[in-house]
C-alpha cells in the first residue's frame, strides 16, 4: 500500500471514531464528552422561579421578616386570652412583641411584663394566631399599654420557629454547585416580608449576576 492510502484510511477511521464519540452522552444530565454540555437554561429558570414563588409564599407565611422568631398558638373559643410565647429571658417584650392572625393581620395586644418571661394578652376567636418577637429595632406600638396582670395561659402552643429568611440560598447552592459557578445571598428585606437575593449563576450557556426577587 502507498503512504497516501494509509493516510486516507487513518483519516476515515479518525472521522468515524469521533462521529461515534459525538453521538454518545452519559446518563441523565451529565455529558460524557465535552461537546454535549447540559443545557442549564431550565435550571436557571427553576432558580428564578423558586425565588419568585418563595417571595409570594412569604407574603402569607410570615408577618414581617424583621421579626426573627414566632410562636404559633391554636385558640379555642372567643374572648380576651393570655398565652405564653416562651420568649427567652431578658428579651424585650414591651417593644418587640406583635400578634398576628392567620391572615397576617396585626392584632392589638398587651404584655404582662416589660421583659421576658412574659405572657401576651389579646382578643381572639377560635383559630391560629402567631406571636412574633426578637426584633431589636422595633418600638412599642401605639396600642400597647402598661403591663397587664398575669393570668394562666389559655392557648395551646403549636410550635416555635425562626425566620425562614436564610433557608433558600443554601438549598439553591447545593442544588447547582456541580452544574454552574453559583453564589447566592440575601441582599435585603423589603416590604416587610419580601427578599432580594443577590445571585451569581455562571454556566456555559447562562451567565447572570444580579438581584432576584
Amino acid at each position, binding site marked *: *500500500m502507498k*503512504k497516501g492510502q*494509509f*493516510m486516507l*484510511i*487513518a483519516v476515515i*477511521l*479518525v472521522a468515524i*471514531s469521533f462521529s*461515534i*464519540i459525538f*453521538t*454518545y*452522552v*452519559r*446518563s*441523565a*444530565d451529565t455529558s*460524557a*464528552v465535552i461537546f*454535549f454540555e447540559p*443545557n442549564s437554561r*431550565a*435550571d436557571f*429558570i*427553576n*432558580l428564578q*422561579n*423558586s*425565588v419568585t*414563588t*418563595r417571595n409570594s*409564599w412569604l407574603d402569607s*407565611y410570615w408577618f414581617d421578616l424583621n421579626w426573627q422568631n414566632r410562636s404559633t398558638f391554636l385558640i379555642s373559643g372567643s374572648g380576651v386570652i393570655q398565652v405564653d410565647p416562651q420568649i427567652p429571658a431578658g428579651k424585650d417584650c414591651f417593644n418587640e412583641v406583635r400578634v398576628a392572625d392567620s391572615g397576617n393581620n396585626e392584632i392589638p395586644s398587651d404584655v404582662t411584663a416589660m421583659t421576658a418571661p412574659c405572657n401576651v394578652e389579646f382578643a381572639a376567636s377560635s383559630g391560629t394566631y402567631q406571636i412574633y418577637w426578637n426584633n431589636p429595632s422595633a418600638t412599642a406600638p401605639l396600642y400597647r399599654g402598661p403591663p397587664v396582670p398575669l393570668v394562666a395561659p389559655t392557648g395551646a402552643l403549636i*410550635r416555635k*420557629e425562626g425566620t*425562614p429568611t436564610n*433557608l*433558600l440560598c443554601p*438549598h*439553591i447552592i*447545593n*442544588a447547582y454547585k456541580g452544574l454552574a459557578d453559583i453564589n447566592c445571598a440575601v441582599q435585603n428585606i423589603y416590604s416587610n416580608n419580601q427578599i432580594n437575593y443577590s445571585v451569581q449563576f455562571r454556566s456555559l450557556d447562562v451567565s447572570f449576576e444580579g438581584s432576584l426577587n
Partner: protein
Amino acid sequence: MVNKKGYFYFIEIIFIVILMATVILSFPRAETSHVRLTEQSNLKAIGFTTLKNLDESGIFSKYIDSYTFTNSNFTAINTYVKQGLPSTIGTKIQYELISNCYSESGASENCGLNITGNQDATLSEYIFSKRPVPVTIRLFSWRLL
C-alpha cells in the same frame, strides 16, 4: 525505510484512536443521535412544566408537609405527577431535602436514578420553596416506546 516508518506511524494512530473510542464508549450510554438529544431536552422541559403546573395549582402545598417532610402525602403527589404526563413516559420521583434524598414513597435513599436499564433518563428538577425548608423535586423520565 521511510515508507516502513510511515506505516508504523499510521498503525499507531489507528490503535490510539480505537483505544480512545473504546474507553469513551464504555461510559453509560444515554443518547444515540442528535434527534434523541432533542427528545431528551423536550422531556426535560415537559417534566419541569408539569412540576411547575402542579406547584401553581397548589398540589405541592397541599400534600407536602410544611414542617415534617416525611409526613407528606407521597401517594397523592405520585398520582398527580404521573397523570400529568403521557403514559408513554416512564417516571421516577425523588426528593432532596438538606442533602438527603427520599424516594417517591418517602423512604430515605441514595441520590440519583439508581435503576439499571434506564440510562436514557432525563432529569427535570423543580425547587419547591413554599415551605420554610425548600425541597427539590427531581423527576427522572424516559420514553417507554
